[in-house]
């Protein structure tokens, strides 16, 4: 008979303790909100997190933690090794198991690194030879379209820096096909009639460019500004940014963000070519 109250008390206590334990464990789990290290922090450290960090690593001025390179670090890691790590190591052109592997890209990479090291080439952070291509989503007369905006940096005498628009490219601007028939022109004697033929030419709206000089090059940036201003283009946002770099004499490198959870990730070199073009001519090739 005395057992029952004890039993009841015991079970009540057990329930209370259990509830308390559940409460405490839940509470401590929910309180797991502290800022703490993660197992793949190594990936974060190795990842080229920002384009500026790409430049710092390329120039061998910062280690993986963003700290200035000291003798201890440089004893383990040379600049050439660091630059090799700035390439996309999954580039199919560099993997010998791939069919049609030519090895030429690997040779080009080696030549590039040797040239950079031998000549101690550095990438200037605000170089005009760094061209950012912002691939922007927009609509043109209500239809979705992609517009590629090219920007580089301008530095004032006071050292202030800003990005400026250089040019714009898009499929929507490609409505100016070149005249191959040579049937559209303003006749040679038109000047004597106060260019009466101009009216005829300017009514030929699908081929206006054919009446322009053979050296005529459309200014797509001006066109872009106009279409934005008139509301025909509605800008949304940049989907992706890639960098075209011609700031290293004799070379062109393309850098983009590889968003993957691996050591070789972030802003990496995705293409490399020999280049001799200056900015304006180079822009035309993009």
């Amino acid at each position, binding site marked *: 008979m005395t057992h029952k109250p004890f039993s009841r008390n015991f079970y009540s206590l057990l329930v209370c303790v259990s509830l308390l334990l559940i409460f405490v464990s839940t*509470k401590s789990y929910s309180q797991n909100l502290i800022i703490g290290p*993660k197992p793949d922090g190594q990936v974060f450290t190795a990842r080229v997190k*920002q384009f500026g960090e790409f430049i710092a690593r390329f120039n061998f001025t910062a280690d993986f933690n963003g700290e200035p390179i000291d003798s201890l670090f440089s004893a383990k890691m040379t600049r050439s090794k660091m630059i090799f790590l700035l390439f996309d190591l999954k580039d199919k052109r560099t993997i010998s198991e791939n069919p049609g592997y030519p090895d030429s890209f690997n040779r080009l990479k080696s030549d590039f690194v040797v040239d950079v090291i031998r000549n101690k080439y550095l990438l200037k952070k605000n170089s005009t030879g760094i061209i950012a291509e912002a691939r922007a989503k927009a609509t043109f007369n209500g239809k979705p379209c992609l517009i590629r905006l090219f920007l580089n940096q301008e530095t*004032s005498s006071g050292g202030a820096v800003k990005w400026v628009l250089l040019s714009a490219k898009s499929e929507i601007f490609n409505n100016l096909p070149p005249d191959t028939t040579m049937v559209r022109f303003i006749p040679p004697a038109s000047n004597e009639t106060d260019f009466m033929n101009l009216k005829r030419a300017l009514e030929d709206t699908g081929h206006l460019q054919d009446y322009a000089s053979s050296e005529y090059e459309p200014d797509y940036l001006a066109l872009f500004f106009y279409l934005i201003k008139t509301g025909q283009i509605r800008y949304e*946002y940049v*989907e992706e940014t890639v960098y075209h770099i011609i700031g290293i004499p004799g070379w062109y490198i393309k850098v983009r963000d590889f*968003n993957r959870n691996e050591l070789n990730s972030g802003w990496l070199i995705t293409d490399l070519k020999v280049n001799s073009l200056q900015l304006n001519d180079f822009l035309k090739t993009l």
Partner: protein
Amino acid sequence: MINKPFILASAAVLLSICAQGQTKTAVTSKQAKLADEINLSAADIEVFKDQTKQKVEELQQYIVTLGSKDEPDEKRNMAEKEALKLFYAGAQMEISTSMPDGTVQKINRPMSKYLARLKSLPYTKVIIRFYDIAYVSNFTKGPDGKYYSTATIIQEFTGYTKDDIAYKDVTKKEVEIIIDLVEDKFFQEKRWKIFLGDIKASETKPSNQ
């Protein structure tokens, strides 16, 4: 005849007057001229780089608090209010999502709306963790006289419905950092202060690319 400190002080006052009504992408020509005269030394910039990390940690702690359903409402409201104070007026949060077809969709929200949403997410429990590392780039002076930099942080978010994980992601956040000259009303002087600007958030992909 006019000494340098006087020019700097006058410039600072004019800067603050001009600052009203301007946007981050536009300044008056007068202000642009004055901005050239006020510079931070390399040593100052290094100090600000360290302070930036503290500022970013402060934001992380506020986000953790206001996301947590276990915290009292008052504390979460306070965290929201204090977090907003860290930002430059008009700061936005851009969240990008990778779609199954490989395209990226982005949504822009004012920071106030982003923080308010974070507080009222439809989960019974939210756990937000940050990696204890942040990368802060060097500061560069802009034409408006302010100094700009970017901090990169990684956030792990887990939303629970009862005991089940309803949503989980790891996002990389690029936080714009701005050092601006502001008026300290108490001491009646101008001083440089760190603000957070726009944030770009993108999900880090576990798969190979």
